[in-house]
């Protein structure tokens, strides 16, 4: 990670939590970050480019409507309605002391949506709010596809998924006719979400590329982790595994062994077809999924190839010390060797990077120190240059790190050589 250098540190006035950073993908390939802090402030962080090509960091406080005084933000989520438009939907869950004297807590899910405009304007989005009153304390908010197969015709719609203090997982779907969001019955569409022993902390959902299967995993406060596979066409469970760690789980993460390039891209562009021809040998895709479970107190665990082995083939990720709390994780290829690395952030101001050696054993490769306890790590392309930047969300703010350009050019040269220089062993005389 020594090739990463600071681009900017965005300060927040108060700390957030593990749910309060969300990325807003823009159509130009860059990303904006929406970060909420404890004191009800929501910031939008982004990079703009000056005329001389320098990156100018910009931090803007966005005043979302219908977040009353005294309310606290619990979780946020956002998604783009379709990937070619800037039409972004943002969901924010809030908790507020009720105005009546009983000391009741009011909780809401606020859903903000803007119109599709050329220039994304967060202020506009923040002004149009749909309100859903909740009767539980919200936890993790995420979005996923609700897929309905109708005689072989796929029908996809994005829904909000919210876990709550009532030990249940709720699904909210937009009713376009009435322009409201309504809770839908789990049993019909998401049979995997049943009653759990304690509130669900984190949920991760993975659809197979043909949308015929869905792998869902979730982890609870008590350490209960469940992994399920669902046949999307008839909503039947294919398998169901669960285990118990006995500690607070902070994160579950389903990570495919290899990321397929977006098929659409290669089909559309002649440019990519040309490269694809040269790159034919590496294209038998490994359809293996790994599940990483980040336990706050115990070492992290990686379950290998969960489609075939379920939760039975696992290894642990060794810890550096026993006093910190592991809060978050990100799985991505940060050194461009074709293998993904696991990054785990801790409360003791460090990121642990795990790497797999040739014998497929995970080792703690590197530890990077930062200045504050970490709440979240993301690898997203902030600047829109095609390279993923490292975003560290800590108690003090958001730190964005960029890879050094000399290093990137070297990697790129190597990759180009691999594609253009013919392999001697393959040549036939």
């Amino acid at each position, binding site marked *: 990670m020594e090739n990463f250098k600071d681009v900017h540190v965005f300060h927040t006035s108060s700390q957030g939590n593990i749910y309060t950073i969300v990325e807003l993908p823009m159509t130009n390939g860059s990303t904006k970050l929406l970060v909420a802090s404890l004191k009800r402030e929501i910031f939008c962080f982004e990079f703009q480019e000056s005329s001389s090509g320098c990156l100018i960091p910009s931090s803007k406080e966005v005043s979302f409507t219908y977040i009353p005084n005294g309310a606290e933000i619990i979780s946020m989520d956002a998604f783009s309605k379709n990937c070619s438009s800037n039409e972004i939907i943002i969901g924010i869950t809030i908790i507020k002391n009720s105005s009546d004297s009983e000391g009741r807590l009011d909780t809401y899910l606020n859903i903000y949506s803007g119109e599709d405009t050329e220039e994304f304007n967060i202020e506009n989005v923040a002004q149009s709010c749909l309100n859903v009153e909740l009767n539980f304390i919200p936890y993790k908010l995420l979005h996923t596809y609700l897929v309905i197969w109708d005689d072989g015709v796929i029908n996809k719609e994005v829904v909000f998924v919210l876990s709550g203090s009532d030990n249940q997982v709720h699904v909210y779907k937009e009713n376009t006719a009435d322009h409201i969001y309504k809770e839908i019955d789990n049993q019909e569409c998401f049979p995997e979400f049943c009653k759990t022993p304690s509130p669900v902390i984190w949920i991760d959902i993975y659809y197979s590329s043909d949308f015929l299967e869905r792998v869902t995993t979730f982890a609870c406060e008590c350490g209960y982790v469940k992994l399920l596979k669902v046949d999307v066409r008839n909503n039947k469970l294919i398998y169901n595994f669960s285990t118990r760690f006995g500690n607070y789980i902070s994160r579950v993460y389903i990570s495919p062994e290899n990321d397929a390039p977006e098929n659409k891209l290669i089909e559309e562009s002649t440019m990519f077809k040309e490269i694809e021809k040269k790159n034919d040998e590496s294209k038998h895709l490994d359809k293996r999924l790994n599940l990483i479970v980040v336990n706050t107190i115990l070492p992290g665990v990686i379950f290998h190839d969960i489609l075939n082995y379920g939760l039975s083939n696992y290894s642990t990720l060794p810890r550096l010390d026993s006093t910190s709390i592991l809060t978050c994780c990100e799985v991505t290829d940060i050194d461009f060797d074709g293998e993904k690395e696991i990054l785990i952030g801790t409360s003791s101001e460090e990121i642990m990077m795990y790497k797999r050696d040739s014998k497929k054993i995970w080792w703690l490769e590197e530890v990077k120190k930062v200045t504050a306890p970490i709440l979240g790590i993301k690898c997203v392309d902030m*600047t829109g240059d095609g390279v993923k930047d490292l975003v560290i969300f800590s108690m003090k703010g958001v730190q964005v790190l960029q890879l050094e350009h000399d290093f990137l*050019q070297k990697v790129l040269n190597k990759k180009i050589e691999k594609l253009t220089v013919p392999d001697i062993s393959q040549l036939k005389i």
Partner: protein
Amino acid sequence: MRAISLVKRIEFDFTGNVARNALTLGDIDNDGCNELIVGNQTGDVTIFKGQEKIQTISKLNFITCLAVGDIMNKNKNVLIIITADGWCYLYANPENNQSDSSQKDIDEGVEEVDGQTQSSSISGSNETLPIDIVLPVTSKKDKTQLVCVHMQRIPANSKNIVLGDLDGDGNIEMVLGLTDRVVRSYKWIGNPDKSAVDITDSGLQFDPSDKLLGKFVAINKWECANQIGSITIHHAADGKPSILIAQPGGTFMRIKCQTDYLTGEECIESSLRSSSSSSTGENISGTVDYQFLGMARMRNQNISTEILGDIRCSMNDSGVSFDKISTTSQRSSSSTTKGKPYALATLDGTILLVQDEIILWSIAVDHQIFALTKMDVTGNGSDDIVACSWDGETYIMDQEKNCVRFHLDEAVQAFHSGYYNLKPNEPDTQCLIYVTFKNTIIIYYDLALKELTCKKFEPDLLKLSELFINDDRTPEESVEYVKNLDKKSKRELVEYLLYNS
């Protein structure tokens, strides 16, 4: 403005209030590595070397100024301590005196053939030293303690100190700024009879106040119209030094020093004369002028100002960088004859870079800047300006107005930036040094700032074009093809190559 976070730091405990100028970096033991010297209100001066505290000099009075330099002109750094009640102390390292001065004397014999009067005294000391005691630098692990070699009464209430060669004789003079708007300059005059005295001689007992080695002789006194912010020495385009004295409201007084060579005796004479009659004093003092830098922003005339001279420009691209700044082509063509820039900062948060009395740029920040230092942070050969505010906001600026900030989450009472040695046998590293109000000194090291600006990654197009050379496309056409790729395709191509191939 870009902000960075710094992780690598060390902390020292240091009790007491530290005056603005009672903090310095310098090589006091002449081993080639910089030490950190800090003095407090209660009269303790502590020297830090590497990760530890190596010496504390106590029982002085309120320390207002500290400086390290070759003030005795013996090619050997000494520590100058000025207290508020008007004592000037010189501390030197006795052991290294032997080895290093003899080493350097030999060097000097080769380099400075033009022959200076002072070299006679040094060659005198050279004879008394056995040459074979030259110690290798690495063997000096044992902690050497500085001893007081001189103390002298000077007018009280000094608040600024600057060392530099003002009269062009190759010797270093001391300039002090006082709280009563007076600036005084002093010259060290070695005792011609006792110049060969070796203070390391343990048998030799002497009182530092005996002025056995020599003494400071006052040369000049100037009175300013207003309170002194800070003092700096600046060299004009012709190489002539001048003293710049910051005055409230972003103005400054400039004293152009006369650089005619004066021998030691003449100097004493002239200093004697200057004390008696003012007309002859002008010989040395040169001309005084006030500069009111014309500024667009209305300035508070009472706001205190910091000034910093002699900001080094990179020799290679100075012409280019100034081309960017100066709009008139006529100016840039004559950039070689331009003086070095100097910087001013005011407490209301204006930082200016000025060259030949023309403001190159100014920025306004909403923090109260109280310290202005320079350091080549990016390592490109030109100095960057490092300014610090009372609340810990630190700005690092290059001469093209690119700026990076760093926030220390604590209030700062004294700040310095420079090179400090953390580990023996390793080169000194860039450091930001903060004295906080919580009795600690925080040193941030390894700033790792290669550039002050950040850009998007731009792939090398020529290399990229290799991908598209095929049967229907020549290399030239391929380059053309890559050049004409729109932004989106180029980004997707880079992404694909990095993550999917």
